[in-house]
């Protein structure tokens, strides 16, 4: 048996906090792949949609013909983690979209953008994570929140009573930035999904 090669994890690299995710994935033993064109989606074991400006990311995804191939890959079961703007991209709807702003509609939640206020309200926070008393140390930066959770969507974390982390099937969406604080819990969960998918018979 050959030793299993490192999982190849795409990071959508059109704009935003790309390098931080790539560094964390590398630290966890994965091979980060910068995704800028549809061809870059081939052979990935998982993908990360990073933080950035969601309206800019949406526009660039459509301008460069990446929206539909990315959406198809996620709907096809590619394990996916969206952080902050990435969560907005994954969602099925935005309460307060920028004019003409669209989403990928692959995660049945509704989100509200900049839900905690402007940058002076951005903060480092310790969040309870899961049921076993675990916490994640992380940061909210002009963060969105989940205002409606669809059927079958699991709530992973709340902040001040508001939903800030969800999962459904192989898709994880979070409002915050574990990649800025070096918090590996959420990325490890993504890599577990990637591993589970790789071990399926082809």
């Amino acid at each position, binding site marked *: 048996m050959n030793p299993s090669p490192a999982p190849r994890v795409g990071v959508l690299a059109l704009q935003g906090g790309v390098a931080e995710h790539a560094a964390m994935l590398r630290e966890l033993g994965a091979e980060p792949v910068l995704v800028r064109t549809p061809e870059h989606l081939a052979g990935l074991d998982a993908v990360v949609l990073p933080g950035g*400006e969601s309206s800019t990311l949406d526009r660039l995804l459509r301008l460069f013909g990446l929206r539909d191939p990315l959406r198809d890959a996620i709907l096809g079961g590619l394990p996916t983690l969206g952080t902050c*703007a990435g969560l907005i991209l994954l969602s099925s709807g935005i309460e307060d979209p920028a004019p*003409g702003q669209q989403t990928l509609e692959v995660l049945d939640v509704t989100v509200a953008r900049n839900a905690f206020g*402007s940058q002076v309200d951005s903060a*480092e*926070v*310790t969040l309870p994570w899961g049921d076993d008393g675990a916490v994640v140390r992380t940061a909210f930066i*002009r963060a969105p929140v989940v205002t409606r959770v669809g059927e079958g969507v699991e709530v992973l974390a709340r902040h001040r009573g508001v939903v800030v982390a969800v999962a459904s099937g192989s898709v994880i969406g979070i409002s915050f930035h574990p990649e800025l604080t070096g918090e590996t819990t959420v990325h490890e969960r993504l890599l577990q999904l990637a591993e589970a998918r790789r071990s399926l018979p082809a």
Partner: protein
Amino acid sequence: MTDLQTTPAQPTASDATPLTGSPLVKRGLADMLKGGVIMDVVTAEQARIAEDAGAVAVMALERVPADIRAQGGVARMSDPDLIEGIQAAVSIPVMAKVRIGHFVEAQVLEHLKVDYIDESEVLSPADYVNHIDKQRFTVPFVCGATNLGEALRRIAEGAAMIRSKGEAGTGDVSEATKHIRTIRGQIAELQAVYKVSPDALYVKAKELAAPYDIVLEVARTGKLPVVLFTAGGVATPADAAMMMQLGADGVFVGSGIFKSGNPAARAQAIVKATAFYDDPARIAEASRGLGEAMVGINVGDLPAPHRLAERGW
């Protein structure tokens, strides 16, 4: 405003109080702007055009640098009504400028909840000795720099983002090129010194007139501890892509968009070229049919007293 000196570095899990205004939170927003274009706007309508074109943020001001240059006089912080009008018009971050050293203008902008303050040489300086003590604020600051020492002094004062200065309001990109090349070159030099004779970094810190700890960090990591954008004279998609290829994390475009023939098309073209800065075919595509670029002024034709990049110390 928070006093960072008294902020606990490692809040515990039981600490329910969110920590606002920390260096990580301030620098974090700049991280999310990387690969993007920040556009100067003077009206809510321009701000909407910028957002629609894919800008990651807008800089709200009363006059773009080209007009400040043409009209002369003392340039100051914008009217709060103008800033609030722009904040109401868009959902992307809104930045605004204060004069160098004018900490009360900064207090006003923090009160208005702008997302980033630019302590800018484009406005008339309010203090020819001191810059603002930016560590005392919750709102993050971006500052201009023409070289590494200047950048590190601003970071020591609390700047959470640096932009190379260029020569604003000219449409001439040559100064922006010089400043980003200088900063990147000086970083490479520090790295080389660190590898060969790290004890020489003390003298490097003296030469750069910057704190040793930050000099050491840059020498070790080979990059600034904050995001580095470039600014000043960027007027075309190719200008923006060149700044990215020279190592900028993103681009400010001031007069270049709304002083051109077709602002909406040019704004979108610059966004595209910034995202695909290493792809000549896409830059070519983005450069087609944009109409007239801003006419501009060659920096060499500007008498020295009118060069804005020389403001800041």
